[in-house]
């Protein structure tokens, strides 16, 4: 019966569309991936929670107006003063010089690698740059103290007045700038290489020079990646501790002068937290208050950059 009846006339078995086998493997993988995502979110939440408690307690003891208006940072003196501005400005001072050096150099290196370098040069330079990212920051600190600072002091032009001391915000800033170049360059370069070749060809076909293609087509199209690299670089500079401890001294000092010794927020936290302070003491809470402020500043900077990217990027598909 089944052999001589044409296949078309036999009533076909219903096609099986429901799932045949439970896909356990897939579930395990999805579960693991969710776990990974949750860990990073929980870590962030944990940090915020850990910061909030002691910070609130800090402000019970120290009025918030003192924190933001007093112009001296001397939390552990007998006659204590909790004006945070000197160390905020210390951070900004160092970061400013780091940005001034690091972002243009990093972007320049990225443009060179992506648009000008021959494939051979690029093959050598790109991995070299990425290796530089892995240099421990303490090495940069000694580089600042034993190379950059002496170099500046020995070649200081007299008409600019006295040379900077052994510890200066400028030397730390310069070295931080150099330190973030690989980060900025490598991420910006990734974004720029991802810009489709067809866009470049379109611009070249209109008689554009390399410079025009790089600056008017590739950079705008890669802007979100470039800004991301800036944010990461600046975050590294703001968050860096060892380099500023070694090269900028550790003296709270409300100044933007690159020639003076300063203290940054991170340097304060590091020196205080490594001393022996008891849990629950005012010193302990001070560290958390400064940490919370640092967190807020970084957050604000990230939000600003997201807004900037949304506003100015030229999106290609």
């Amino acid at each position, binding site marked *: 019966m089944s052999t001589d009846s044409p296949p078309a006339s036999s009533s076909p078995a219903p096609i099986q569309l429901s799932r045949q086998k439970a896909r356990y493997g897939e579930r395990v993988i999805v579960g693991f991936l969710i776990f990974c995502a949750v860990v990073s979110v929980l870590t962030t939440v944990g940090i915020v929670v850990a910061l909030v408690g002691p910070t609130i307690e800090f402000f019970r003891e120290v009025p918030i107006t003192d924190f933001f208006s007093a112009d001296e940072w001397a939390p552990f003196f007998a006659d204590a003063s909790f004006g945070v501005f000197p160390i905020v400005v210390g951070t900004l001072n160092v970061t400013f010089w780091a940005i001034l050096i690091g972002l243009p150099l990093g972007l320049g290196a990225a443009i060179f690698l992506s648009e000008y370098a*021959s*494939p051979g040069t690029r093959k050598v330079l790109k991995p070299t740059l990425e290796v530089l990212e892995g240099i421990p920051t303490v090495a940069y600190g000694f580089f600042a103290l034993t190379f950059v600072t002496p170099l500046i002091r020995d070649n200081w032009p007299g008409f600019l007045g006295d040379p900077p001391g052994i510890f200066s915000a400028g030397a730390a800033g310069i070295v931080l700038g150099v330190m973030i170049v690989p980060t900025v360059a490598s991420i910006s370069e990734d974004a720029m290489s991802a810009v*489709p070749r*067809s*866009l*470049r*060809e*379109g*611009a*070249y*076909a*209109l*008689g*554009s*020079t390399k410079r*025009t293609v790089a600056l*008017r*087509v590739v950079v*705008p*199209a890669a802007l979100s990646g470039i800004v991301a690299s800036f944010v990461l670089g600046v975050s590294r500079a703001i968050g860096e501790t060892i380099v500023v401890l070694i090269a900028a001294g550790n003296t709270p000092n409300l100044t933007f002068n690159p020639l003076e010794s300063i203290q940054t927020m991170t340097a304060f936290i590091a020196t205080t937290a490594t001393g022996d302070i008891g849990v629950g003491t005012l010193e302990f809470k001070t560290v958390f208050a400064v940490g919370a402020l640092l967190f807020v500043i970084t957050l604000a900077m990230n939000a600003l950059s997201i807004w900037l990217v949304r506003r100015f990027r*030229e*999106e*290609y*598909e």
Partner: protein
Amino acid sequence: MADQLQTGADVKTAPPAIDAPDAAPNGGPTSSSAPVLSTENVHVFYDGIPAVKEVTMDIPRHRVTAFIGPSGCGKSTLLRSFNRMNDLIPSAEVTGKVLYHGQDLYGSGVDPVEVRKHIGMVFQKPNPFPKSIYDNVAFGPKVLGMKVDMDEVVENSLRHAALWDEVKDRLKQSAFGMSGGQQQRLCIARALATNPDVLLMDEPCSALDPIATGRIEDLMVRLREEYTIVIVTHNMQQATRVSDRTAFLTVELDEQDNRTGVVVEYDETEKVFSQPSDSRTEAYVTGRIG
């Protein structure tokens, strides 16, 4: 004219006027006028292996010249050697001469940037910049520093490309919101805005529907009055509809089994399609091989 392509020569003023003295007295183009482009024994290599060889041909002024042939025979490669676009591919090398109004584009001291100001290109896949429609068209004149009324150039170019009526109310919007056919016409408008002498078009309609294709074909026929056009196409009807002359390229295998493109036949389009002189051309245009 003689040194217009040299490095540093400043062609900053709008249109790069190429007033060939050989135009017919009545202003209309004649078939006897000197060619705009003429190649002498051009070979193009990728990584030392020839992709196209022994091309010697003249591209007449104010005519549409079509390149047809099977995929991979080197049509794009040859076309890109006409505005030094192959310079952008590190492995590519061009030998022989490509004379543009008698001047060798590959001669020493010739600046590819200058070459591309005179010889524009439209690509197979629409490649608008991720900028507004207006900025796309204004890009060329701006980077060339042309001192022109930009609004006027943008409008004229878009009108030329039969796009103005569709976009005149949204010039400030991103070009990426347009349909594929509109994007391609935008790319044509963008190329026209710098007022080139020659327009190279590499399969400009391959991503388009018949209506958009029809529009672009009409456009080419009209643009012929002012520009010299070279088009690559896979569409035989398109070649017969728009072109005056047709070159048929195909692949030849050499002793080392390298596939190299050659120009088999190059003649008036009518002749290529109705009485081809080579059997390979005949097989191709009658659809027996593809």
